[in-house]
């Protein structure tokens, strides 16, 4: 990952942003997440195909913290999102214009204290996607039905 790296949100991920909260669902594995504060803001920039540098720049204009700390937090967050298979490297051509939605920089006095992004993960949907192993197939090719014990 370099400062010019861009990411894209994976196709099987749905997400919705509220004022300062975000809800994300990975449709492939059923895991879902909530993000607040700086994490939600970072996600919005990722969605707009900002580079890593642009994400750090934007966060630096909103929060008070040493740039090195912000860089480290962004790198860690991006790594976590990749590990959760929510984002992937975007190898397509960069946008001609900077990402939309970058508001004017906050005056230093108006900047917020920085809290590292926290991705809250929920895995209680995994059982809905658990695939029963196919043990036997009948003569016409259908998996053999077995006694179904209900939840």
């Amino acid at each position, binding site marked *: 990952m370099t400062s010019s790296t861009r990411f894209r949100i994976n196709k099987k991920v749905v997400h919705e942003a509220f004022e300062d909260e975000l*809800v994300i*669902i990975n*449709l492939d594995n059923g895991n879902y997440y909530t993000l607040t504060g700086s994490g939600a803001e970072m996600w919005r920039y990722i969605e707009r195909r900002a580079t890593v540098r642009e994400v750090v720049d934007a966060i630096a204009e909103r929060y008070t913290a040493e740039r090195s700390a912000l860089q480290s937090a962004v790198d860690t967050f991006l790594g976590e999102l990749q590990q959760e298979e929510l984002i992937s490297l975007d190898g397509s051509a960069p946008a001609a214009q900077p990402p939309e939605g970058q508001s004017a920089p906050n005056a230093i006095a108006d900047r917020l204290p920085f809290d590292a992004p926290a991705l809250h993960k*929920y895995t209680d949907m995994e059982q809905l996607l658990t695939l*029963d192993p196919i043990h036997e197939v009948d003569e*016409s090719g259908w*998996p053999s039905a077995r006694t*179904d014990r*209900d939840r």
Partner: protein
Amino acid sequence: MIGSPPCESVRPDQGKQSGALAFFQSVQRAYDRAETVSGGPVERWYTIAGAPVRLRAANLDLLSCLTPALGHRASAPEREAALTVSLWESAASGVALPPPAWGLDDFGPGGEIRGYNNGRIRAAYQLGSGILSVYDSATRRAVYSLPSSRRIPLHERAAPLRTIFQWWGAGRGLIQAHAGAVGLPQGGVLLAGGSGAGKSNSALACLESPLFYASDDFCLLSPAAEPAAYSLYSSGKARTGDLARLPFLRPMVSNPTRPADEKALFLLNEHRPERLISGFPLRAILLPRVSGRPGTALRPCTAAVALAALAPSSVILAPSSADATFHALARLVRQLPCFYLELGTDPASIADAILRLLARLVPQH
């Protein structure tokens, strides 16, 4: 041990639509044979979300075993159906399913058949129970096949034809939500949350109140400018341990000899038909959670919290329309006030809290 794949399979990715349509037609022909062998058909009509639905079964036993949870929506025959479902069982008819039009690798999680979830023809197969559902969105016809009406799993008796109704509803702009719903004709609430949150118990507790019951697990939502919930099923389920708090449910248990780990199933149309409702305008979204206190209270929550409670199971159970479902629910949580429903130990307090809320939210004319 996995056997060899079928000798002849028309894979959807080799001329997708024609292969899928051919499969649907072969399943329809199998139903037609089953109907002939069984001396059928037997028909029943229902009104779901204001639309006429026709179930056409090869034999009466199958309808009798499968459809009690739909009984509250029974209606007179219409000239034309918005949805026609043909149903048969292999055991009674001796007519088996035609070979699948896909390979073993295409049986996906949740019953979804890979390649059959975004075209004209939809298909899902429940690996455990052997239930096949196929739907032609162009003709609004579906076929449903199961091995035997004597081995219908609990979840299917509680929510029969759920997948077909989800596909059909999506074509009408309706979202199938994994949620309870109770209310009054002038307005009601959605009860949202994951498994064990208290949706079912909260909805069932309201049976002893002036509130009407539309759902404990699945309902159809119309995410319009004035959103509404529509009842699909008159069933309810509860863990055996919960019956102590809701003793009035004990005489209504339809599966008294169930295994120890199976939930009790209630077919409410047979016991409390007067407490059932076809639907209502939605006024709020409630997230049940156990408080441990005697009384039930409401506490506002954010739309994001409500979406995180409502959306995951609803979209996972609707793989063919997950994106549309998610965004429709996102619009819904923005439109309606959202609250935690902090459940008291007194079951009667649940309905009281909901009724007080509705008194505030329902427009007074």
